[in-house]
């Protein structure tokens, strides 16, 4: 295994796991965090993903010691982290707007965490200088140590903030919307770079973002948060392929939602009766049905699927996005390759036969895990007006 680059001289490599249990933080009128529990493994890169106000930044600030929870525990390798003052936690934080010290040069910014140490632990001047140079090299900013933050671009400031946080050899690195203030192109470039750096250093990292693409692309695991609660924890693939709650299905990726009911083992949608293997427990229940646009297959002409009218066609790069309408007024999104669209000679206002390869069914009101099933084509079934579904 490659040595971590900032392993201490005594070879005591600080790699830490974090255990968060039952953490709550209440502000006057709302729960910023509501009984959060989460384990972060050593060297892991975890993304906290959620809409604004979901509590991700509050969690980060509590871990950094800048906010206090009302309830709950945080352990770092078994040690009570919350008992420590922020200044003694040794946790590196990169703030959303970087919070660089405007009156200090870049090198002074990076050296700050070393210079404020007690005399006994403070490295010598030459050592600090060497460390600053090493960090500047690491974040690819050689030669700008003597500039002031105001003279840097957004991407450069972000990297200075990162170098400053890394200078204290943090046991945990916290990044609050690290790319939030950058323009789109710089963001994409920095993503891969930051991921590589984190892997090389092996520093346990928690990273807050509201950008799902960022989270899915960079993180080992994604924590989806909503209204102060954790909706789901999983690998990017699990989060996308097996969303456990309706919120996650709706928040991650593109999806369509329909209301239906299970009657005699069939899913009834307005104007449609869908066959498939459904658990008996759902019999007679109201359900929400979710599907991804790329799961909507376009059937050959004459085949039996869902007869849907193409309402809008939009070319997005290599893909074509379509909005499909049922006669009863509901709609779903579909995504096809441009070749498929050409093959079927699709245009707006034609009616096609489409069939989702996969449907995810949530019982309403939501209870328990969702059920995923493959809808069967229903030969001979009159698709319109034949059922007496609840919405017909």
């Amino acid at each position: 295994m490659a040595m971590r680059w900032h392993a201490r001289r005594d070879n005591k490599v600080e790699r830490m796991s974090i255990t968060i249990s039952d953490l709550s933080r209440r502000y006057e009128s709302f729960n910023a965090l509501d009984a959060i529990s989460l384990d972060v493994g050593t060297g892991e890169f975890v993304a906290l993903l959620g809409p604004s106000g979901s509590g991700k930044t509050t969690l980060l600030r509590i871990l950094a010691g800048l906010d206090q929870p009302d309830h709950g525990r945080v352990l770092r390798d078994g040690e009570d982290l919350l008992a420590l003052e922020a200044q003694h936690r040794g946790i590196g934080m990169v703030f959303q707007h970087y919070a660089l010290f405007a009156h200090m040069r870049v090198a002074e910014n990076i050296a700050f965490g070393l210079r404020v140490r007690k005399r006994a632990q403070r490295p010598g001047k030459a050592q600090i200088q060497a460390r600053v140079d090493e960090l500047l090299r690491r974040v690819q900013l050689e030669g700008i140590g003597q500039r002031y933050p105001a003279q840097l671009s957004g991407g450069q400031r972000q990297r200075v903030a990162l170098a400053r946080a890394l200078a204290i050899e943090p046991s945990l690195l916290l990044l609050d919307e690290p790319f939030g203030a950058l323009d789109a192109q710089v963001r994409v470039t920095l993503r891969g770079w930051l991921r590589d750096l984190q892997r090389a250093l092996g520093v346990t990292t928690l990273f807050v973002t509201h950008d799902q693409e960022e989270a899915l692309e960079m993180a080992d695991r994604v924590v989806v948060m909503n209204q102060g609660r954790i909706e789901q924890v999983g690998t990017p693939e699990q989060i996308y392929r097996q969303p456990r709650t309706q919120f996650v299905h709706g928040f991650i990726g593109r999806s369509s939602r329909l209301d239906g009911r299970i009657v005699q083992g069939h899913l009834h949608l307005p104007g449609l009766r869908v066959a498939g293997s459904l658990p008996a427990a759902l019999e007679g229940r109201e359900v929400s049905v979710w599907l991804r646009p790329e799961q909507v297959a376009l059937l050959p002409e004459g085949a039996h699927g869902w007869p849907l009218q193409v309402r809008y066609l939009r070319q997005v790069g290599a893909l074509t996005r379509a909005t499909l309408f049922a006669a009863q007024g509901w709609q779903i999104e579909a995504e096809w390759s441009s070749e498929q669209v050409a093959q079927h000679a699709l245009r707006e206002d034609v009616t096609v036969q489409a069939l989702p390869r996969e449907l995810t069914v949530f019982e309403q009101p939501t209870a328990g895990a969702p059920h995923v099933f493959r809808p069967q084509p229903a030969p001979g079934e009159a698709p319109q007006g034949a059922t007496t579904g609840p919405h017909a």
Partner: protein
Amino acid sequence: MAPGPLMDGTHFMVARRPASWGATALRWLLIGAAMLCIGGLLLLPLLAVFIEALSRGWTVFAVALADPDAQAAVRLTLTVAAIAVPANMLFGLAAAWSIAHYQFRGKSWLNALIDLPFAVSPVVAGLIYVLVYGSYGWFGGWLEAHGLRVIFAVPGLVLATMFVSMPFVARELIPLMQAQGSEEEAAARTLGAGGWQIFFRITLPKIRWALLYGVLLCNARSMGEFGAVSVVSGHLPGLTNTLPLQVDQVYNGGRSDAITSAFALASLLALLTLVTLLIKRLLEWRHGDALARSARQ
């Protein structure tokens, strides 16, 4: 003639359409009015002070300043300022820090009350201290029983001076610190800095010019205060007369050289204030960039 490139500022200036007669007239009228006010209300009287003070030659001037009561007044003024200004600096820092960085009940009240000394007449300010600490005031009896004298003594002068000069530092700092927020302090904390390290290495450098402005203004007001100090002083020459009170007493004293002596003292007072202004100007000139960057954002 081809016009210059649009982006070129100099061409803009040169190519500016001639202003209409009315606009030109207004411009000169406003500049003239401002100059007249500064000249007539500020410069001329200031000049008069020095001319009057020196009108009968240096001897009278020197005699006026050699008077032991005058010297005591100068010492007292400097003493009072030396206590009131640092106290108000600490108060201003604490108030600005609290208002900018903390959420607490009564914050808007605190913010509003800081301006009170600007709104209240200095005479009233003096009287409230008499009412509280005077012989017949709330704590007067207790203080006298313990041999402490506030009113008609130096502590009263300091209190009254602190009252009237209280807002200057806080008012300079509050908007600045509110605009700056506390993220840099938070960052410093996560990097391992303690409270004093954060204050001296992060906060103070960010606010030093505003703080200096506030202190200079506070100092000017402290040394020049008349109304509030007059009420609590008791006008004992050589004991509780500050320089402004001494000027007033000499002026109204009815001695033959009263006018000249008063002007001699007044010029000294004006000189102290002018030195303050000069320091401020000097700092602006020396550190103009830093000032523009941090103090007046």
